[in-house]
């Protein structure tokens, strides 16, 4: 039997997922890892769509690409401030262009 289009597509996305997951683990800097995790969430959502699971894809999109990376970024932000007790000495570059 020859695989149909869906299955070929699924296999391609699966391999991408495997690669991104590996990169996510090997990215040792947590801030960068959060970005890779968001990409992983995105590719997983794509995979789930291909596998005909739109419900799951939708939640993976919300959780994997938005909430988990956001929580990680917030954690890192608190931790970085903890590392530099002198608040005025650290200017954090916030994504929204905050002006402290």
């Amino acid at each position: 039997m020859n695989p149909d289009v869906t299955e070929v597509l699924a296999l391609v996305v699966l391999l991408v997922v495997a690669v991104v997951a590996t990169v996510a683990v090997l990215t040792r800097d947590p801030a960068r890892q959060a970005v890779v995790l968001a990409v992983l969430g995105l590719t997983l959502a794509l995979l789930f769509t291909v596998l005909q699971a739109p419900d799951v894809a939708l939640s993976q999109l919300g959780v994997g690409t938005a909430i988990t990376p956001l929580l990680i970024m917030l954690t890192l932000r608190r931790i970085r401030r903890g590392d530099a007790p002198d608040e005025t000495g650290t200017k954090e570059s916030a994504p929204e262009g905050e002006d402290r």
Partner: protein
Amino acid sequence: MSRSARVRLFLGAAAAIAVFYVLACTGLPHFGTAAHPYGDRAVAATLRQHTANTVSSINFDQRAFDTLGEESILLGSVLGATALLRRTDDEQEFTPGQVRVLPSTRLFGTLLLPVALLTGVYIVAHGQLSPGGGFQGGVVLASALHLAYVAADYRSLKEIRPRELLDGVDAVAAGAFTTLGLAGLITGAAYLQNVLPLGTFNTLSSGGLVPVINAAVGVEVASGVIVLLAHFLDQALATRGERTTTERGSS
């Protein structure tokens, strides 16, 4: 154990696991198999229950007990985060500085906020019909609120986010799910039994208890995620000062 010894130990174990796992997979039905006995039964039951979205029917009707457990985990982690991220005596709150927001960003956020809120409500409400449901919609609703952060700043987010109220809403929604299950018992049926009229297939009111539980889950997820994020945002943006007791610099 030294780091290298640990890694060697792990790699040896992982190699063994990999070998057995690969061999195990050769015994599995091939990818795309047609044999899904439970799946077929679940589809048949879904159609009997006048629910169009099979996944919603499984989550909120056939295996609603799983979802009850899952929502309890969410409640537990919201309570847990509340306890863990409480502001201790040695920490102070501070007000993050005034933030300059580009007018275009503000416009973008202000326009997007109602759209996102509506989308969230739509996804929750159509859970029994189309992909989506309480969980997905709840996440969208929670994210929508945080557009306020993009559009304005943390202070305005805090103003439109009544956290104490949402704490309560989260708990009430979780309790509502548990209580809805009792409806079955009271009418002489089983716990969590779908005892409401099933309605017409493919309409908003179809599926009996499904849309009701779905809505409760939507409310719980939305408020739960907002509260969770609120604790994290509070720690990240508006808390400072701590005492480290031990081990600074020791190895």
